[in-house]
């Protein structure tokens, strides 16, 4: 048997099949790109009809399917953080609505069942004098309190530091902690935070996040925004009817008038932050 010739024939056949598959793949990717460009054009046209322009740099994000996630409230973690903030002698009181209040010689911290936290206390450190000092102190305090900043973003504006948290590799738009240093050794704390790894169930439902749908729903609401600059898929922290913490898939739309959150599933505009 002439294996040499057989190999030649096989090489030709395989090369032909590969070329066909490659072409097929290229056509599909090309069609997808064309569809995306056409969709973006249509969205721009429709948005313009509502009096909203879409920035030239805007890139319509790809659709995503995100699972709805749950997080268990962790009172031990809340207590440990409060003890680190106020000292081990802080007294703990739980109210009927699930809010836990910690009071110590240094100040007060309140953790609510929906993850909201607020407090005011002395840090025991030198007061920061500028933004750089505030950033360094915020980083050190958060580490001391046991709040991880590895997957979070820490920014400062003057003597105010804001920690923006993420979960499951995506931003959680309302999971933030704001530290306002008063310049006299004190700090006030405000925001919403959670502990532990989020989870879903094997049969848990996923939510399809369509950027075009969310954008069109948003512009049709005729908000004060005149220009859309960017949008990003992520989560927002909320409590469900059984008072469990949930991470709900959400789009964040950045406009010239501020940031808006749009629920991926219900397409409702949830919140606005200027």
């Amino acid at each position: 048997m002439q294996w040499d010739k057989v190999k030649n024939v096989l090489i030709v056949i395989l090369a032909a099949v590969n070329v066909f598959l490659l072409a097929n793949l290229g056509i599909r990717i090309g069609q997808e790109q064309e569809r995306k460009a056409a969709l973006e054009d249509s969205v721009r046209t429709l948005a313009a009809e509502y009096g909203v322009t879409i920035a030239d740099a805007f890139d319509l994000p790809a659709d995503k399917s995100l699972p709805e996630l749950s997080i268990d409230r962790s009172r031990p973690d809340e207590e440990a953080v409060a003890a680190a903030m106020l000292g081990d002698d802080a007294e703990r009181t739980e109210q009927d609505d699930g809010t836990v209040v910690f009071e110590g010689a240094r100040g007060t911290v309140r953790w609510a069942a929906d993850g909201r936290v607020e407090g005011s206390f002395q840090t025991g450190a030198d007061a920061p004098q500028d933004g750089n000092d505030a950033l360094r102190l915020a980083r050190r305090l958060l580490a001391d309190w046991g709040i991880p900043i590895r997957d979070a973003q820490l920014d400062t504006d003057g003597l105010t530091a804001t920690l923006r948290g993420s979960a499951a590799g995506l931003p959680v738009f309302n999971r933030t902690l704001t530290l306002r240093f008063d310049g006299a050794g004190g700090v006030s704390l405000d925001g919403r935070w959670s502990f532990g790894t989020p989870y879903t169930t094997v049969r848990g439902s996923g939510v399809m996040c369509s950027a075009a749908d969310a954008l069109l729903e948003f512009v049709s609401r005729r908000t004060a925004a005149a220009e859309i600059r960017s949008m990003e898929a992520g989560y927002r922290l909320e409590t469900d009817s059984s008072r469990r913490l949930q991470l709900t898939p959400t789009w964040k739309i950045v406009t010239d008038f501020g940031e808006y959150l749009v629920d991926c599933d219900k397409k409702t505009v949830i919140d606005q932050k200027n």
Partner: protein
Amino acid sequence: MRAPARSARNTVKNIALLVLVAMLCMLCAANWVLGMNIAQMPADNLLRRAYDHLVGGAVGYELRSSGVAAAEPAQLALRVDGQLYGVQYNLTEVEAAFSAVQTVWEKALSDGTLEPADEAALTAALQTGDCALLRYHGRIPLRVIASWVGGIWTDGGDTAVETLLLSADAGKLFVRTPDGALYSAEVPVDADALASAGQTFRGMACGFAGDGYAVYPETLLFDSERLTLPLLDRRDIDLFSAQSGAGLEGLLQAFGFTAYTDFYSEQDDAVRVFVDNASTLRVSADGLLQYASAQGDSTVRAYEEGEVRGQSALDAQLDCARLILDEALRAGETETHAALYAVQRSGDTTTLTFMQLYGGVPVLGESDFASFSFAEDGTLVSATVQLQRFAARSTQRTVLPARQAAAGAGEGARSLMVAYRAQDGVYVPARYYLSSAA
């Protein structure tokens, strides 16, 4: 020279063949993957997880076979170093206490063999040593409770239980069933976990009834108990009001319908009946939901037929029912939450019954709050939910303390329960006796 040249050419051809075959495999896979709707795959699919890593989807979250417990215990207690503390009928306190003792129960409910036990052994175990107690209202299978706390229980796992008591000294788990039977099993007790739980568990001082009362010896009697609860008025629900739009849409989706499904109205639009090829959903504006489907055709499935069985099937059914109930409670904007009350099997149908709680206190009515029947293939065969909305009055009532109730218990009254019941249109909290035949 010819032989080496032919050999080199042969090697090149072999390499080319290998490369072309590898390319063929990769291109086939790429074409296959591109043609699939990976985003719609379930979260436990490996391809979906890999896809999410590549395209920036959600990653780094846990997948659990079942969500959080479908029912919180009505009472919990823990005795470490001789002092017994307990919590009861307060959702936030119960959740806090449960998180403190979860590890203890997770390790204890990791299989054992249930055997009938005598009351004397239980009474002896109650008197000394570290112990922990969980009490539920209802008839909940032991394996379901074990699953909620992170453990696994197979032998006798279908036994419906009401109270679980873990005794460190005896190294035993005692289980009380709703019909009064007592079982025990040798289980591992983690002394370190108990000591750690003792540091974070917060509750009121209490004691066990022991053999001095007619009620079960494990009944918790709180010192200086003052359980004061508001009276409740029933408020109207209008599921069809414009404000309920989003909630109703979510509710329809939970039952496999969309907001555009055809429906017809009855009773001057007080009732809307949504119908598709396989199922019917009857929604009353006042909160009554009735669903029925042809077995095997329902679009609502807890799992695909043949994919899961046994405990996993029950977990999936519980999750499915809970997701629907969550949507229903959201649509009704109720202040209540649902808790599993019973699991019954009849033929190849499993029926899950839920009761509703207001702030952790059961609200009892003429009929069950919610029930879901699943076929063996995972389809939802029928469901009924009676949504109710309550408003707390400023008037409060103090419930008869358990110690007094236990002292007044007659023959047959073996356990106690605090619940709301309707009296002249007002829901009033009171303590009730339950007989062993309940």
